[in-house]
């Protein structure tokens, strides 16, 4: 039977991809970010950690969906997904290869669980989906695992509530566990952390909020899931609302988890960045060494 063995969070900002493609990933600015991710890359490259399939939760940034069609929760059931052209040509990365058997199984299961999914059989994927793959796997000819893209609307208001996202994660876990094939499945929650990309308030970063969020995500997700949208907006910036997607990942794990790795960095372009590896406590592996890394911003002074 398939299992959700791991939850991962990752930033998905386009500047990370640009840093890789322009050979800047080791410069003064980007070096600490890629150093922070290197630990995850080494961890995930081990055969026992490499997922067979990733359920990749992200938001479409007005790429697959325009203003004519705005699904709250969509799920990609196609054989493959092409990188979208977001205005500078498609990202030079491999097609994302799906897992239609598992994806349809999850889609059907979620609808039976009263989630009103939008099933997608043709869809381009934007930086929200492909950047986390680049950060985990570098620049391979083909991505080393199958991916089920799960776009969430966090652009046009209202996005789904935190509680709805958390419950969706729980139903994803149950769906994975009722799939007969023996698969190592990851659920990745991407985007966030605090950032604002618009208006005079652009550039907002809230370190305290972010670190509390990470702590609560690990230790008390149920309470965290009740946080209203306005709190995200006030505290974490208008685009910080992407963090509700992390609750989908967290909902797919049991109440007790172990954080194998906990990386937080300020800034990556306009945003704070958080990258976690979480596993169910009962089946958790060894924490990485170091287990926690904080870098950039005011941490640099410490």
């Amino acid at each position, binding site marked *: 039977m398939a299992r959700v063995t791991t939850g991962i969070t990752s930033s998905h900002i386009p500047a990370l991809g640009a840093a890789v493609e322009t050979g800047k990933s080791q410069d003064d600015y980007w070096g600490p970010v890629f150093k922070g991710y290197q630990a995850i890359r080494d961890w995930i490259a081990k055969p026992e950690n490499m997922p067979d399939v990733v359920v990749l939760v992200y938001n479409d940034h007005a790429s697959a969906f325009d203003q*004519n069609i705005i699904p709250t929760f969509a799920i990609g059931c196609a054989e493959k997904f092409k990188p979208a052209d977001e205005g500078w040509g498609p990202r030079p990365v491999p097609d994302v290869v799906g897992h239609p058997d598992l994806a349809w199984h999850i889609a059907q299961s979620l609808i039976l669980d009263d989630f009103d999914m939008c099933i997608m059989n043709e869809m381009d994927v934007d930086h929200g989906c492909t950047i986390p793959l680049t950060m985990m796997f570098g620049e391979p000819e083909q991505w080393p695992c199958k991916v089920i893209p799960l776009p969430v609307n966090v652009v046009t208001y209202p996005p789904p509530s935190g509680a709805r996202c958390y419950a969706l994660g729980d139903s994803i876990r149950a769906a994975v566990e009722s799939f007969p094939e023996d698969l190592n499945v990851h659920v990745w929650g991407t985007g966030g952390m605090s950032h604002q990309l618009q208006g005079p308030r652009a550039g907002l970063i809230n370190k305290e909020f972010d670190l509390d969020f990470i702590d609560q995500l690990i230790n008390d997700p149920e309470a965290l899931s009740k946080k209203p949208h306005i709190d995200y907006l006030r505290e974490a910036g208008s685009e910080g609302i992407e963090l509700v997607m992390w609750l989908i990942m967290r909902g797919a794990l049991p109440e007790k988890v172990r954080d194998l790795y906990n990386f937080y960095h300020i800034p990556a372009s306009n945003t704070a960045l958080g990258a976690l590896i979480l596993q169910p406590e009962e089946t958790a592996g060894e924490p990485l060494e170091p287990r926690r890394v904080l870098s950039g911003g005011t941490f640099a002074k410490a």
Partner: protein
Amino acid sequence: MTEKKKERINIHEYLAEMEDIPGTRVFTAQRARKGYHLNQFAMSLMKAENRERFLADEKAYLDEWDISEEAKKAVMDRDYNAMIDHGGNIYYLAKLFSTDKKSFQFAAGSMTGMSQEDYAKMMLEGGRSPEGQRSIKGKY
């Protein structure tokens, strides 16, 4: 099994709160509707041939869209605050600054009234503090 909702969020309060954040336009239905054609114009720049046509003659390209003259001017001036006032959303408008080969940091910085250098410096030093930036009414 889904049951009828027992407690509901008051949507009027919910939407009113969205307007209480300094220097921020939350992309509510009101803005989405106002900016529909502007955002769809931006989406059209996902095709290389449209980008070329747009860059070759911006005004002519914009005239193909049901966008107010003011909003067209905001586009041609690359005034992102004004575009957002006209209902634009930053993820849609990203297709415009990408067409210009500009980054999210450039676009975000351009809206703050700061120079790109000062904005980059602020970000490096930990970003803009939320202090006093959370609520217009509450001033906290």
